[in-house]
């Protein structure tokens, strides 16, 4: 132990706030570690297995530390129709990491998400929440290059 979970104290420790607690941990740490699960379980007075059970149900929660720049490639219907799988392929080749992985330098992590809700600009991806739309290969490479140089 040794980490500080004081930020949880803003949330009322009742079972219905369990997901909020996990979200708070992820907002703070970027992911939910084993240690955090135990801390959350203790705070909300729910068994550790149950806490992990809830966590594993929801796609939002990450169990490993994400990169500095989190790339989400949208694979919603509109993006899929417009070739999002190609975008994903290009990024995989360029960064040398698979869907769901983080590179060894901890700079980029890559995941596909169901829909970013910007279907009219399909295909889109987001980097740390900022959405980039109307992508083709050139635009995708430019985005990666820009973040690499940052």
């Amino acid at each position: 132990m040794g980490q500080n979970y004081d930020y949880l104290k803003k949330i009322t420790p009742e079972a219905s706030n369990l997901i909020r607690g996990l979200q708070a941990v992820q907002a703070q740490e970027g992911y939910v570690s084993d240690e955090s699960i135990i801390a959350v379980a203790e705070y909300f007075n729910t068994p550790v297995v149950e806490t992990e059970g809830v966590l594993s149900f929801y796609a939002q929660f990450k169990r490993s530390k994400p990169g500095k720049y989190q790339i989400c490639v949208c694979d919603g219907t509109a993006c899929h129709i417009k070739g999002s799988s190609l975008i994903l392929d290009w990024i995989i080749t360029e960064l040398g990491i698979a869907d769901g992985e983080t590179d060894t330098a901890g700079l980029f992590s890559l995941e596909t998400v169901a829909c970013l809700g910007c279907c009219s600009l399909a295909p889109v991806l987001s980097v740390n929440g900022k959405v980039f739309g109307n992508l083709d290969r050139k635009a995708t490479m430019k985005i990666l290059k820009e973040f690499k140089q940052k």
Partner: protein
Amino acid sequence: MNDKIKKIKIGMASCGIAAGADDVMALLKEKTGNMAITEVGCFGHCYCEPVVEIETTDGESIIYSHVAANEKSIANVLALGEEGRFEVNPKRKAKELLKVTRLAGVIDPTSYEEYLDNGGYVGLKKALAMSTEKLIDEVKKSGLRGRGGGGFPTGMKWGFLAAKKTEQKILICNADEGDPGAFMDRSLMESVPHQVLEGMLIAAYATGSTRIFIYCRAEYPLAIKHLNIAIEQIKEHKLNIIDGRDIDIFVKEGAGAFVCGEETALIHSLEGQRGTPRFRPPFPTDSGWKGYPTMINNVETFGNIPYLIAEGAESYASVGSEGSKGTKLFALAGDLDNPGLVEVPMGISLREIVFDIGGANPETTKAVQTGGPSGGCIPVELFDSLVDYDSLKALGAIMGSGGMIIIGKNRCMVETARYFLDFTHRESCGKCTFCRVGTKRMFETLERITAGDGVPEDLDFLAEMGPKVIKGSLCGLGQTAPNPVLATLRYYRHEYEAHVNNKQCDVLSCDNLVDVNIDQDKCIKCKLCIKNCPVDAVSDDFVIDNNKCTRCNTCIEVCPKNTIFRVKKGEGFSSE
């Protein structure tokens, strides 16, 4: 800067920001010497973003589309130049009917005063002057049906909750817009949060609710922000005190589970549990959140309420078709010129929406997918059908929440079905065997077919398993998951047969059934393909080794002369 400029508005909903509106905004501020610029929501024409609207001292409104964050583009706007002026396409203007989205993209979503000045909270005031019985009667008479996809009569649902005599009653706004390809609710929450909240307050009064939850997708940070700002403003003006009840309003963030759009699953999630659905009865209006009577309505349903009450049920019901009243929002995306959000009266034809409003090309359009992964595709031959709850159901599709994906002739329908099953089998919560295992087997079968390994029996299997999954599943997810497969089998069986019998994908979409070749006559030997190929499949004399090639399309994209093509497997290249 032209001195006729009175007010500058910029569209800053998610779609605007994604198109670069924040850079445009920064430059506009710089060039106008920090003049106040109003950030408005989405006005529906997403294909035009970034959009800047100028109100002049003459009372004129000039809209500029595709404004770029550069000196020239901004100078043109500030000089009220002719370039880039935007007019709504007259065909669209004639068909659309702006009721729910009347103020979207017009007012500043974070301003309580602007909403008030534009007729906001008139409906609430009128509702509070009525008895609750009269109010519910009004909603019943309007014919409003749930906009989340189910189409249950809203007034009836309200009546169920109102009849409960408990101290605590819970009202939930379902803002877990999980259908990939749908963004109506996002747009409403981002652009007119007060209108959605006004609808909830009216419902809370009618039903005697004591607490309101808004269950919103975490993927919609801007919507959550605007809702929270609006809730603070409501509390400041004490609008949340209704009938002496101090109604608490919370926004709860979902955590990424499609099944949570189902009402009993959503309630479990709100209780901090895994979001699995349960048997009904008891229905949520009998026993919902923590056992209290609970009613769930969708964002767009609430968005309809303020004007329904303000204008009256009769006026509301004068729009729409026999069984479906009012207007409906549709999110158009996919293969069309003008993707975006549109509000039309119910009962309009698909043809009008897709071609006249969406600007899709009738020559190159194959089908439209309504209702997202729970819906079905409707082929272009049937585009004269009307868009309302009952007509779409008859075609094997559903109205759904309003996402419409236009599918072009160059898309493979088997691959489209595979895509939807990939989504639903992963989103299945695992509770019902038929949904958990059945969707997975269907998905695997479709994977095999698109990979060229399908056998004729696979088609029989899909046709047999689909109805079983529908019958054997507890909630809407499983009950609708096979729809995309069954609909494509019904209308595009020949495409399935081409994959299975001839190992061919006629539109050259399925990677395992195509080769990639270079047209040697037109190639200029620039070596860009060789340089960019990630797997070194292009030889020094510009021949692609199709055993090595992963069909990633990189060479096709980088080729400056468009001399690289996908061709049917084993057919080689012919330049005709």
